[in-house]
């Protein structure tokens, strides 16, 4: 943890980033790691189920068909994962993975709000809105 102590040495001539920024970054980093590990675990479980059932079928991705709706809408993925389907679980893990950076941005809104930095609360909300639109707005219609 030597890196955490470093800012203490900063001379007043510099304009250091506020200490809270560093603390916030550390929390965000841990949120990201936890999300990735969780989603990798779910994908791995789904992968094992999928392989145990389909290991000897032929694999071909030469022709693009597009995924059925149970693998490309949030509702479909959750339903398919609840039914214990391997590929449904994999997609659920991938959804968790996509949600991880979104959670990081949501946490950043709170972080900037605590620092009373209205400008960056605004910027972060814009990013959050774009991400939520991508995940929900573009899949709702399908």
């Amino acid at each position, binding site marked *: *943890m030597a*890196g*955490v102590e*470093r*800012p203490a040495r*900063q*001379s007043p001539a510099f*304009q*250091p*980033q506020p200490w809270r*920024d560093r603390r916030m970054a*550390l929390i*965000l*980093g*841990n949120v*990201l*790691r936890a999300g990735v590990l969780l989603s*990798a675990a779910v*994908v791995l479980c*789904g*992968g094992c189920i*999928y*392989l145990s059932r389909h*290991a*000897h*079928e*032929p*694999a071909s*991705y*030469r*022709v693009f068909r597009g*995924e059925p709706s149970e*693998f*490309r*809408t949030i509702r479909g993925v959750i339903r398919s994962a609840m039914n214990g389907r*391997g*590929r449904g679980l*994999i*997609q659920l893990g*991938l959804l968790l*993975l*996509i949600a*991880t*950076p*979104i959670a*990081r*941005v949501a946490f*950043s809104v709170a972080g900037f709000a605590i620092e009373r*930095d209205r400008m*960056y609360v605004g*910027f*972060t909300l814009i*990013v959050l809105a*774009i*991400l939520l*639109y*991508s*995940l929900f707005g*573009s*899949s709702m219609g399908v």
Partner: protein
Amino acid sequence: MTVLEFTTVVAIVSFVAGLLGSLTGLGGGVVLVPLLTLLFHVDLRYAIGASLVSVIATSSGAAAAYVKEGFSNIRIGMFLEIATTLGALLGAFLATRIPTSILAVIFGAMLLYSAFLSRKPRPLDQRNLPPDPLATRLRMNGSFPDLVGPRSYNVQHVPAGFSLMFGAGALSGLLGIGSGAVKVLAMDQAMRIPFKVSTTTSNFMIGVTAAASAGVYLSRGYVDPGLAMPVMLGVLAGSFLGSRILVKAETKSLRLVFSLVILVLGLQMLYKGLWGKI
């Protein structure tokens, strides 16, 4: 090939790509899509969907380690993410409309540019630049721990950097890559951010950028679970191992080999795209 064989081989290739990408700092995603399409004859759209997912995994996994070192600048990252996520949305929507042969040509050009950039000597950080009014108002200037103590920096040319970042996001959404090469152009060359700060901040941003286009890809049916599973797990494990042995390994010759691989893959993608073989 059966599903089991395919999954095993793709997982191994993804593991090696993730390992080399992390050891050389050039990113694994950039070689994954050409390898999947050229070697395994995977449709370009499935390959891009799977690669995009692995980009989120490696970026988010590595960010935790980078953050501890105190180099990344959250404000620069968050401000530029407005540009990259908008660009990523645009790129993802374009990807569903552009024919795969043109996508392959763009991808090939991107690979050639990455190979070129990886051989170019890194420009020296310019010190003691005057504060830029816009960057000051956006509170982007900061400092980071250097060898002799904290070093402060003043960010330059915010509008140019913002526009380039929009382009980087669009490429990321279009091709399913982290597009670190364009981000370096925007942050190092235009905004004059010190190298250590720009690489770690860029890594922090890649996951958010990729998440913006991944939602679109998933809902369009471009993310196949059977393919994305070995790719994501393989790349994640490879890059995790790479970050562990990074300090000990001699990366100079490795970097040369990897950039040659990127060059060859780029030429192949260009050829296949131009002659409509993809």
